[in-house]
Structure formats: C-alpha cells, structure tokens
C-alpha cells in the first residue's frame, strides 16, 4: 500500500511542477494567480496523502489550514491588485 501512496504523492508533485510553466508564462497576472490556486488544491491533496503515508494525523489539520489560506491570496489579489473602478464597488460575494 505504501508504494502506491508514494507514487501518488510523487505524481502530485509532478503536477505542481507542470503548473509552474503557467505561472512563468502568464500571460495575464490572473493566469498566474489561478495557477497559485491550483497549487493550493494540489497541496491539500498531497498533504492528505502524506498524512496517510507517514501516519501523522496532524497533517490533516495542516491541509485544512492550507485550504483556508490558499483562498486568502486570491482574495487579496482580486481586492487589491487587479481591481478597476472606484472604491466601494462591491457586489454580492458568495459566503466563504
């Protein structure tokens, strides 16, 4: 069973490295931000697999924290870096 989990973890890492290409190439900064979000999701999966592989239950908490905070970067990006128009222009946001 362990070799399987290790293979899965390795493949997830390979996926991460492929995502680096999109971060480097862009072309808009939104594409880079999206790739970072992708890394968050992949990282969560990787941590969950590692929790099973290394038998460390606390890693599931790390995955939880990562899932929460990976969105924060996107939020900061949308709210601060890439906005257009006057301030106070806020529409309905989905509950997070």
């Amino acid at each position, binding site marked *: 069973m362990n070799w399987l989990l290790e293979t899965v973890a390795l493949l997830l890492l390979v996926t991460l490295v492929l995502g680096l290409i999109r971060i480097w190439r862009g072309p808009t900064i939104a594409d880079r931000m999206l790739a970072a979000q992708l890394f968050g999701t992949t990282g969560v999966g990787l941590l969950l697999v590692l929790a099973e592989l290394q038998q460390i*239950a606390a890693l599931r*908490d790390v995955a*939880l924290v990562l899932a929460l905070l990976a969105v924060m970067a996107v939020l900061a990006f949308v709210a601060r870096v890439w906005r257009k128009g006057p301030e106070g222009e806020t*529409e*309905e946001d*989905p*509950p997070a």
Partner: protein
Amino acid sequence: MTEQRHAVDRSSRVGTYILRLIILLVIWWILSGSHSDWWFGLPLAMAAAAASVWLTPPARFLLRPHQIPQFTGFFLWQSLLAGWDVARRTLSPSLPLQPEILRLPMALPPGAPTWWLMLTISLLPGTLSVRLDPDRVLEVHCLDARLDVTGSVRETEARLARLFGVPLQPTEAGARQ
C-alpha cells in the same frame, strides 16, 4: 419577497444561535478527534456562535433536511460528469471548445439561494458564473455553446429551490446574447 432584512425577532435569533452552536460543536468534535477537550471547546464554540450571530444576521433561508441527500447525490454525480467533460476536452488533440457568455435572468430569490447557485454551477459541467448584474442577470461562461447550458442551469435552479423550499420567480426564457 422583500429585499431588506427587517425586524428579525428574538426567537429566531435564539434559534439561529442554537443551530450554529450545534454545528460548531460538531466541527470541534471533528477537528479535535478522539480526545476532545470539551472544557475548552464548549466556551469557544459558544463565543464563536455568538460572534457569528452578531456579525451575520440569522439566515432567512434554511435548508430543508430531507432534501439534502438528494441534492448531494445530484451534486456528486454532476461534478463527476464535469471532471470527465473537462478531461475529455483537454485530452483530445483538437481541443473542442466553443466558449460563449450567456446572460440568464435569475429566478431564485436574492441572498443565500443565489450564492449557492453561483457556486454550484461553477462546479457543474461546462458552466462558470462570471458576474451578477444588479438587475439580477447572471453572466455564465460556458465551455461549449453547443450544449444545453440554459437547461442545465434551470435544472440546478429548480433543485436549489426545492432544497431551500422557496418559490421560483417566473422569468422570461433565458435571453441569449
């Protein structure tokens, strides 16, 4: 369906508090695992529930519990289809895409049901919510305009209306831009 949330009476406030407290206690139980420290978790959950009632007023829409399994099943099956759809398009050499942005008037009441719809259709095959106009027209980006996007959004809408137990406001048929 009035727009402003007015005069939430005291009993609904207490009910909301108890409901959220129970949810938070369950989450605490999940998070802390087998050795739950309730002397810490209980006051924390009570404070968090109080803060949440204070910050987010009681919801006007409640999920109907007996509809949850049905909706979950629908959601899981559709997300499986969505992943498969994206995989098929990505892996085929010719990259069969025909994206288009549709404008669909919303039939669900504003607030939680609309948010749920926007989040849900982003995870369903071929659709992505892009923007909600002030006049309640949702812009939907679809991967393939040849599919019946309007129909699947309408179906999700109907299922959400059943989940929340709210009526659908009649709209004219989805206007295509």
